């Protein structure tokens, strides 16, 4: 009797598992989209404003405008950043996703590899006004090189150097640093009596990667070779990471406590006058929220080794931004394209990027006085002249995790007073590279 019962249970479980495995696998993305439900769209927006409610307030009237023009009702869901990638992965797995969605531009190649997103070939681009309307570097961050983009640029951002004018004045410094040597010299003049030169988010993997990537470009290093294989231990990559850590370890212009920062505490330190400089993307709204007045801080391009920012070794920022993508199995393909066309139209680009403090990746929309103020001008010029996208490879998120963690650990070493040498940096990066090979 007992054996019989056990056998029944086993059989049931096996049968269920077989059913589950068999009917799983999503509804399939092979067949492409259709126009079965032309009257509605679902849109997943990333959280660009101070909070989700603010985003709904900004996007709401625009979606109404779209509905009036096309008769398509857009169902909006604003998704906070910590959840967004998991939600997209779940949607990819189940095949039950939105029609249109925002993605971080560094995810483009990874999500492209899943095959769940519509490719923007010549025909699809023509439906939204052509490829040439967009800034070339922003287009580089929409998927792997040599493939049709998996998304279209929506909001763009770059890094800038924010500095506290009063602290600079008190230290007798008249202008922001343009080279790293100047930055270190200025930082040393400021770093005393509980004040520090530069802020860092040592515990935030993504931020670590962004800084190391730009410094790497200046040392002539990419973290991946032409074949897409990791090359974290090249001399240039090691020198770039060491330079960043040395701001704390050797130059002592970053407070040791920054090694554990991971929730934007460095911005708070800046706003409260504890540190004089931070390297950040569009931090103005946060500073204002922390009680600074717009005249209290200045904005300058991120320093370079020498000369002025440009291309090649003069790159001084990663190209940050948000792309808009269409799920391949949408049931309103034409509507989705219309919506992307609407969101990337000159008028909407001006309006939305102004509201979010970002820079439009659409060239025509950049010619607006709002993108020519002192802070937005620096961001816009960096974006158009001296920013490069992170490696567009499917393993991008492994890269962020492994190298970002290596930098976090190195900061921890530096903060604990352990020596940081070329050899120790190389050892950490070698370990990160081994993890990539899993």
């Amino acid at each position: 009797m007992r054996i019989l019962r056990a056998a029944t249970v086993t059989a049931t479980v096996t049968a269920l598992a077989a059913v589950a495995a068999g009917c799983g696998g999503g509804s399939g993305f092979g067949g492409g989209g259709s126009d079965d439900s032309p009257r509605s769209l679902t849109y997943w927006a990333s959280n660009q404003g101070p909070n989700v409610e603010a985003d709904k307030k900004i996007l709401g009237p625009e979606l109404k405008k779209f509905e009036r023009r096309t008769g398509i009702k857009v169902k909006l869901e604003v998704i906070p950043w910590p959840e967004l990638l998991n939600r997209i992965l779940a949607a990819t797995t189940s095949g039950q996703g939105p029609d249109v969605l925002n993605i971080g531009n560094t995810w483009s190649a990874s999500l492209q590899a899943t095959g769940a997103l519509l490719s923007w070939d010549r025909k699809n681009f023509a439906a939204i006004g052509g490829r040439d309307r967009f800034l070339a570097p922003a287009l580089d961050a929409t998927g792997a090189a040599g493939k049709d983009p998996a998304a279209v640029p929506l909001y763009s951002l770059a890094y800038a150097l924010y500095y506290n004018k009063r602290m600079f004045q008190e230290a007798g410094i008249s202008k922001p640093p343009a080279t790293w040597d100047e930055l270190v010299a200025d930082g040393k003049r400021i770093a005393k009596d509980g004040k520090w030169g530069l802020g860092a988010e040592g515990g935030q993997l993504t931020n670590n990667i962004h800084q190391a990537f730009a410094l790497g470009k200046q040392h002539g290093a990419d973290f991946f070779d032409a074949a897409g294989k990791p090359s974290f231990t090249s001399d240039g990559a090691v020198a770039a990471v060491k330079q960043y850590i040395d701001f704390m370890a050797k130059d002592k212009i970053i407070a040791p406590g920054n090694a554990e920062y991971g929730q934007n505490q460095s911005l708070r330190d800046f706003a409260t006058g504890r540190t004089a400089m931070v390297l950040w993307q569009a931090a103005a709204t946060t500073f204002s929220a922390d009680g600074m007045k717009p005249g209290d801080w200045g904005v300058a391009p991120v320093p370079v080794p020498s000369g002025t920012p440009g291309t090649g070794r003069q790159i001084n920022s990663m190209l940050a931004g948000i792309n808009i993508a269409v799920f391949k199995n949408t049931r309103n393909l034409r509507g989705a394209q219309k919506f992307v066309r609407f969101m990337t139209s000159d008028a909407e680009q001006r309006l939305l990027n102004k509201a979010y403090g970002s820079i439009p990746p659409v060239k025509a929309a950049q010619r607006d006085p709002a993108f020519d103020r002192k802070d937005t001008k620096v961001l816009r010029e960096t974006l158009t002249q001296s920013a490069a996208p992170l490696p567009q490879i499917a393993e991008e998120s492994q890269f962020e995790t492994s190298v970002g963690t290596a930098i976090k650990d190195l900061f921890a070493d530096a903060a604990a007073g352990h020596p940081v040498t070329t050899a120790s940096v190389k050892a950490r990066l070698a370990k990160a590279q081994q993890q990539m090979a899993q």
Partner: protein
Amino acid sequence: MRGRARLRRVGLPYLLLLPALLLELLVHLVPMVIGIVMSFKELTQLHIAHWGAAPWKALGNYRVTVDFDAPAGATLLHSFVVTCAFSVLTVGLCWLLGTAAAIFLQENFRGRGLLRAVFLTPYALPVYAAVITWAFLFQRDNGLVNHVLHDQLGLTGDRPFWLLGDNSFVALLVVSVWKTWPFAFLVVMAALQSIPKDLYEAAALDGAGLIRQIRRITLPSLRPINQVLLLVLFLWSFNDFNTPYVLFGKAAPEAADLLSIHIYQSSFVTWNFGTGSAMSVLLLLFLLVVTAGYLLATSRGRKSADA
């Protein structure tokens, strides 16, 4: 006729159980089985859109996982050792604190109700809110912990980091014990109510002191409760994900790299769900073996004690 009656008699309980059983299958077993199936597949971002059709990898994921000479296996082994130490210490401390507090609060005194309520607060707080508060307390420059230890008591020469390096293990342990011990307290307190007062009175008449009473009466009476309590505490702390995740974020320091967060990193963060599943299955097997061994050992011990 008799056969049908018998069938009805035997079948009824099963019929009544059926809805629960089906839901149980749906909620627990099916995801588990799918997880096991996934662990034999090569499930990276290239295949998740058609995960049913992802290529089979046989034991490939497991081979990577248990190859302790390669980085993946070595870090998993390290993480396993850390988790074992963490669980044993958490269970031990939670039990000790919980039992001690429960025994002391058996005495009738003014303010007992208030103390009981206060002791239970950590258990009632939402995990995220509680742990993020601890993360602020443990901050090096502005945290309360360093303010007390360094600024006021002068115990440390330099401000130590609590969320980086080796100290992170201590920080994690403190938060975990703080969060879990009220459960032990609650359970032991409930169990103490059922011990007859006469036993203590008789023991007191015979001249047994407090320590002797605890050793000879209280602890033996708590035995069946402790058996379950220790097991539950162990399983909880071994699988704890929320505490390290909220405390350290995506990348925990090596000293506090618990298995659950390690597995999360190996699957969600690096998009390699096959390897993550293989690690999860190994974790499940380990916990099954431990649980079975524990139950076998303790129930056999009890039977011989009862006899």
